[in-house]
């Protein structure tokens, strides 16, 4: 590894960044993850049966937009807005009151419009409709649309083939990326919240709270996680709701993190600086959040990265077993589970979703390992 020389005054975050970027596996893993997120975000424009632009009978229409869900509108509007605010932040802060009011009004307007309008459920597709000009997405199939050619192997028409009902696998994978990535991300955020809170409190206050939290963790760890998740899912009525699955995965996978945070807090709070902060009049909350947590952030981040990977895997296994996202919502595990019955002749049904899961998990693990090396001062001498 070729790590540039230390440059005197750099912050902790800058140092981690420099070491992280010097690791080619971690760097490329991060790139893959970012690319995956962009693909997932733009999925409706990459695979859709509606044309992006259609010119027919002298009229220009954009058939893709009426079919977008509110969440897609939010994404399309808010992300550029956030980027704009970020780039214009200097000018923005010159008249903060006015600009913030303007922003809030704009967001309120968008939300009201989204609340009263509903996406048009138009089952027709623009593939075969005559038009003087049309711009179709790269994959002109929607993920839930059945076509007559079933079990088509990978071809120019269907780059990843089709399944038993003629649905395009590439379209399902592109849309499934949103399910898998967002479940991984949100589930791990929930686990992070629970794990850091409980572990932090146990490590800081020790005593009975610590004993209670540790025993609770041990009880949680006694159950096979998948069993726990299946029981929890069966308790919820609506299985199709993505947020239940996120919550269930998050609430069953925080124990490792809680242990880690507890250990870090025990180590840190035996050093003098938390007491010094207390001696300056800082409250317990302030000591925990402002003094201890930033010191434990490195290992927490590393563990969370691996956690995202495992949450994606759990979601895939759940979908594979038929307990995850219910049809027709596409997810990688769901595509994989469809492959089970036809694996002896339709290899592409298992290959492509498997590849997608493998790529994602591997990228997350590379990023996690890169981060771990970057925050660990002992591994730096190379």
């Amino acid at each position, binding site marked *: 590894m070729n790590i540039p020389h230390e440059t005197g*005054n750099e*912050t*902790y975050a800058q140092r981690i960044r420099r070491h992280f970027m010097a690791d080619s596996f971690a760097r490329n893993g991060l790139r893959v993850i970012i690319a995956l997120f962009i693909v997932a975000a733009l999925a409706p424009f990459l695979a859709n049966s509606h044309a992006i632009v259609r010119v027919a009978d002298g009229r220009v229409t954009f058939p893709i937009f009426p079919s977008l869900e509110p969440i897609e509108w939010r994404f399309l509007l808010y992300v550029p807005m956030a980027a704009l605010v970020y780039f214009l932040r200097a000018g923005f802060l010159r008249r903060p009151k006015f600009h913030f009011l303007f922003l809030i009004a704009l967001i309120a307007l968008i939300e009201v419009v989204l609340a009263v309008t509903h996406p048009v459920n138009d089952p027709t597709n623009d593939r075969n409709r005559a038009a003087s000009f049309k711009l179709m997405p790269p994959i002109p199939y929607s993920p839930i649309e059945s076509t007559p050619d079933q079990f088509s192997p990978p071809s120019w028409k269907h780059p990843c083939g089709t399944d038993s009902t003629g649905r395009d696998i590439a379209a399902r994978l592109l849309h499934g990326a949103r399910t898998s990535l967002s479940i991984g991300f949100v589930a791990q955020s929930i686990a992070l919240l629970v794990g850091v809170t409980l572990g932090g409190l146990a490590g800081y206050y020790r*005593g009975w709270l610590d004993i209670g939290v540790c025993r609770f963790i041990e009880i949680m760890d006694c159950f096979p996680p998948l069993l726990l998740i299946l029981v929890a899912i069966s308790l919820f009525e609506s299985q199709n709701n993505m947020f239940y699955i996120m919550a269930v995965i998050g609430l069953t996978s925080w124990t490792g993190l809680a242990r880690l945070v507890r250990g870090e807090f025990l180590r840190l709070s035996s*050093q*003098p*600086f938390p*007491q*010094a*902060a*207390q*001696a*300056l*009049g*800082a*409250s317990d909350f302030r000591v925990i959040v*402002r*003094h201890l947590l*930033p*010191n434990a952030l490195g290992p927490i981040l590393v563990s969370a990265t691996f956690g995202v990977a495992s949450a994606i895997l759990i979601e895939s296994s759940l979908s594979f077993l038929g307990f995850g996202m219910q049809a027709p919502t596409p997810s990688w595990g769901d595509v994989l589970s469809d492959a089970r019955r036809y694996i002896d002749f339709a290899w592409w049904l298992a290959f492509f979703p498997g590849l997608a899961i493998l790529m994602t998990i591997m990228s997350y693990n590379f990023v996690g390992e890169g981060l771990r090396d970057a925050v660990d001062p002992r591994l730096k001498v190379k």
Partner: protein
Amino acid sequence: MSTPLLRVENLGIQFGPPDDPVKAVDGVSFAMNAGETLAVVGESGSGKSVTALALTRLLASPPARYVSGKIEFEGRDVLRLPDSELRGLRGKQIAYIFQEPGSSLNPVFTIGYQIREAIELHRPEVRDVTAEIISSLDRVGIREPAKRLDDYPHQLSGGMQQRVMIAMALACQPKLLVADEPTTALDVTIQKQIMDLLKELKRTSNMAIMLITHNFGLVADFADRVAVMFRGRIVEAGATAEILRNPQHAYTRALIECVPKLGQKQHRLKVIDYAGIE
């Protein structure tokens, strides 16, 4: 005489099981007036640090138990103060300097940020916080303080770190500064510098200073009064000069003799003979 700034009466602090306690502090009483300097001298484990931490109830309870006594700061009973008022007392009225400056500063924040936190906690009325930080660093003898604001603790030497700790303690203009072995972790020349700085502060401000040390050598030209602690009790207390000239207690004599003197031929350092004391 008016009411003292700080009055400690019959303070008792224990650790461990109640039926077989470790009596860390066992009936300690003393008082300090505003602007006065008191040195608490004693060996490791004599209860001097525990006493100092107890002044603002910094010892977590449990494991520590405040079994008896009273700590009055400006007439307020510290041991019965609610937590919110206690936080107003810590840092604002009674500030601490600890033994290891390196690990008493938070390693992930710049020193400027940490002093800023202290000022923002206790002196919300300060308008120009940055100027206040710079002047507080300037006061403890840090050269070019404006350039040091963005330094991390690990970029400073031990002596500089201790100066930053002192600057942080002084930033809130406390009435009492408790220096808990401020020079123990530093080498001798830096010790001298830090003690000179404390002396300078003693001379220029009306702040009471409680110096905790095991080294009688530091006490002589610094403290107005000395209290000698041994096994959780104050065995001897009085004016510094008086005690140094005419120590009454065997332990005090032993402690004074522990400090090697310049020009004296001695093959072995004196060690404390506990059997002779008890």
